[in-house]
């Protein structure tokens, strides 16, 4: 070998001038600063990141659409109640309230403790503020606590710009119109930004494609964000927001509506301790008032609130081979409703949690990951969650991972404490003995990078088992009919996810992904809502997409998604629908005549006049939009 090396050296006619980046490219892909392979894509779980550049290029107009075309995600549009407008889950188990998926906005949980799940259209975050969205598929309760069993969606907003700047944008089309404004500025010590978004989404047509199902949504959001860095080691952040939504009540005569008012505040302090790592403290509060429930006759009022305090310590040690996170958190969450909790209207849950997570480079090729979370709460008692993973790099730019995780899902307050008499002869009664669901997951994955990172490939194979699954059952068949919840069911899911992404030029990329999932459960469609878990998730899904800069300031993008047939079950409406397999095709053309201006035209669901994706009696129509955006400042 040595002789060959010398021959190679001697044979070189001269040291040709290398590409200026060659040296750094070679050094970057060999080792990281920690002397072990740990680029972002070498995580112990399946992670997908959507950047602001992609969000802009593909023209996504809401958060559900950002998630729709990604591997392993199930997004069903046309969910019409409670401020959702879409049902979103990772790795299946779609239903009105997906209690097993945690959603964080800048680290603050946006999960609703009242019914479980997330009100996607009402999230107090604006599209113009999103810097990136991280999708973590599979359980991650060891880091994020309860309700992170199927996955975690982390929405990260951008920090204020230091230079005075601002933006104005307006968009409108066949089904919606929206405007957004922002202003920001600052200096070396920090910055401040203020953003506002007004959205008016027209009601979808009824499921036969005609008329108006009265599920309109008018939304008004105001967000403030500030940063202060008195020295390079310390950063303080403040975030706050208020929002108000008015939404139509589908199936009503068009005059009924519900209002939702929400506010939140968050303070974060981060201090770098040099060799000792970083300490982070977060305090937050949020409150939501729903002034009417959209489904039932009569007014229902629900107030939910959440207080959070968290302390984190991150450090590298052992010659930077070990990365550790230690944390402790306290959460008080509650709901007040005279109607839902008749007789005992105030229900709350106090959660204390301690957790640690370690990643250790055992050798240059092998990394071990372990995490443990211990959570004690009024609703769930003491619940351990943990994760163990091994990452092995058989060659540069390739990583294999094996992981086993256990995660629990806290039952929503409604399922635990409800005492809700509907106008119809139906009485929903919570079960105080309802236990958390327990999920175990085995997963193997492979990820690779080629062509200097331009080509990314990932494969994940998993098996999940959910024990003590919440199961709504008829407690008493008399009049009224009494329905309650227990832990009688057990479900399993096995799946495969493949994804490829190729960045062929600056601003140009194509991607493709395929997901397979098969779900089984012990009970079948025997619950009160006759939910068939086995058919509730499309078995096959694939998505392809691409974006490119065409020259002269023009840019174009296109997305195509396919979903197999599945059964949609709306528990709030008690309806069930066999949804046919379908394609969705979106396209967008933009023109940037100057760096500070953009005009665009976009079409969504272009292949058919309308599609039905959920069982709420509404359809998702073909839509067209156009818009203009102007940026001020650098």
């Amino acid at each position: 070998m040595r002789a060959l090396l010398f021959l190679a050296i001697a044979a070189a006619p001269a040291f040709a001038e290398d590409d200026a980046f060659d040296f750094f490219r070679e050094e970057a892909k060999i080792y990281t600063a920690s002397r072990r392979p740990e680029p972002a894509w070498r995580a112990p779980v399946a992670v997908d990141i959507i950047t602001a550049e992609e969000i802009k290029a593909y023209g996504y107009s809401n958060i559900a659409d950002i998630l729709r075309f990604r591997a392993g995600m199930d997004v069903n549009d046309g969910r019409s109640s409670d401020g959702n407008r879409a049902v979103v889950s990772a790795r299946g188990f779609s239903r009105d309230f997906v209690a097993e998926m945690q959603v964080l906005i800048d680290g603050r949980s946006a999960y609703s403790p009242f019914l479980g799940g997330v009100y996607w259209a009402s999230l107090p975050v604006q599209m113009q503020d999103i810097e990136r969205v991280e999708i973590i598929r599979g359980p991650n309760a060891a880091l994020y606590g309860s309700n992170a069993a199927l996955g975690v969606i982390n929405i990260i907003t951008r920090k204020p710009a230091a230079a005075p700047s601002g933006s104005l944008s307006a968009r409108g089309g066949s089904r919606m119109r929206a405007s957004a404004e922002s202003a920001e500025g600052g200096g070396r010590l920090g910055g401040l930004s203020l953003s506002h978004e007004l959205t008016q989404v027209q009601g979808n047509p009824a499921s036969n494609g005609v008329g108006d199902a009265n599920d309109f949504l008018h939304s008004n959001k105001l967000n403030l964000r500030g940063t202060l860095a008195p020295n390079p080691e310390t950063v303080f952040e403040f975030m706050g927001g208020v929002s108000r939504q008015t939404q139509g009540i589908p199936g009503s005569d068009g005059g009924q509506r519900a209002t939702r008012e929400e506010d939140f505040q968050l303070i974060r302090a981060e201090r770098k301790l040099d060799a000792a790592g970083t300490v982070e403290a977060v305090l937050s509060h949020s409150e939501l008032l729903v002034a009417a429930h959209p489904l039932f006759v009569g007014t229902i009022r629900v107030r939910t609130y959440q207080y959070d305090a968290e302390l984190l310590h991150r450090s590298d040690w052992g010659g930077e081979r070990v990365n550790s996170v230690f944390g402790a958190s306290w959460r008080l969450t509650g709901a007040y409703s005279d109607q839902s909790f008749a007789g005992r209207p105030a229900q709350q849950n106090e959660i204390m949690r301690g957790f640690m997570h370690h990643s250790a480079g055992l050798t240059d090729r092998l990394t071990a990951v372990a995490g443990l979370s211990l959570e004690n709460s009024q609703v769930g008692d003491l619940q351990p969650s943990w994760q163990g993973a091994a990452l092995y790099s058989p060659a540069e730019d390739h990583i294999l991972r094996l992981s086993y995780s256990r995660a629990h899902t806290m039952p929503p307050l409604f399922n635990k404490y409800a005492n809700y008499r509907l106008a119809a002869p139906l009485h929903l009664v919570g079960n105080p003995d309802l236990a958390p669901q327990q999920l175990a997951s085995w997963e193997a994955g492979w990820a690779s990078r080629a062509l200097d990172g331009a080509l990314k490939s990932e494969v994940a194979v998993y098996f999940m088992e959910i024990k003590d699954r919440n199961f709504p059952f008829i407690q008493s068949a008399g009049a009224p009919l009494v329905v309650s919840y227990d832990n009688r069911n057990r479900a399993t899911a096995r799946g495969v996810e493949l994804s490829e992404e190729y960045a062929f030029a600056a601003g140009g990329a194509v991607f493709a992904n395929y997901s397979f999932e098969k779900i089984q459960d012990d009970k079948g469609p025997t619950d009160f809502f006759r939910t068939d878990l086995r058919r509730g998730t499309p078995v096959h899904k694939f998505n392809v997409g691409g974006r490119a800069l065409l020259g002269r300031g023009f840019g174009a993008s296109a997305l195509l998604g396919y979903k197999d047939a599945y059964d949609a079950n709306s528990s709030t409406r008690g309806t069930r629908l066999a949804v046919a397999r379908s394609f969705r095709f979106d396209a967008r053309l933009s023109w940037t005549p100057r760096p500070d201006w953009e005009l665009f035209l976009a079409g969504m669901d272009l292949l058919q006049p309308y599609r039905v994706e959920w069982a709420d009696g509404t359809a998702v129509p073909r839509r067209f939009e156009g818009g203009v955006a102007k940026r001020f400042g650098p």
Partner: protein
Amino acid sequence: MRAVLLLLALSFPGRAGAAEATAILSSDSGHYRQALEGFLEVWGGSVAVVSAGEAAPPGAKAYVVFGSRAAARAWTKDAVVVACLAPSIAAEEGDAVTHVSLLGDPGVLLARVRALIPRLKVLRVLWSSDSSRVDAEALRKAGVERGVVVHLARVSPPSSLPSFLREQADDADALWLMPDPALINTESFSILREYAAARKIPFLAPTEGLAERGAAATIAVSFRDMGRAAAESLRARLDGRAEPEFVRSGTVRVTVNVAAARAAGLDSDFRSADKVLP
């Protein structure tokens, strides 16, 4: 000259165990070979050359390693090691490795930047990896001595560069990109070039070829000079002389891209530059 040196090196492989020093190359890439050539020019003794995947010759104690892959070995306590062109390897307390800095002498570097930009008061230095921390701090200290505010701006993770730049105050007279592999790639370079152009401030880069790619100027130690510095350091250590943990070459070359420099508001005649690109 190169051919002669390589022929001299070729005469030793059969007696690798008896060589005075062992050179380990991360790969056969041109940058490591240039540094090896510089090393051989100064070294004067016998050298066994092996690749990173090979075992070192038995009995070898003195090593010069080129590249992070070659440097990331578990060295024995009695090994004398000089690491060159290994920016991804962080220095560890008590380790046997002397690091040849890619940055060069920060005092010389700042003097040359100032000759290029006489109005320089605030220099924003972008870095990311832990392994760049020592060089970044050295630059800051040199700035204090010379009346230049060196603002160390750590981009972590490197992918956050666009948003990170948005948050930076417009108070810098120039932008300096550290020789940090986590941060130097075509994408980040393009972002930084556009950022500097929009603010009409010079964008300074740490390796000569980047001037041709649009940096206003590069202030760099050549790979060959780093090899020379490695040879001097290894010789000093074998002779029992005290050597600093970080060796910094004072031979810093300045290359100016006149078009980019003029666009950034530099109106000097660039006489201080070693090379001028039109």
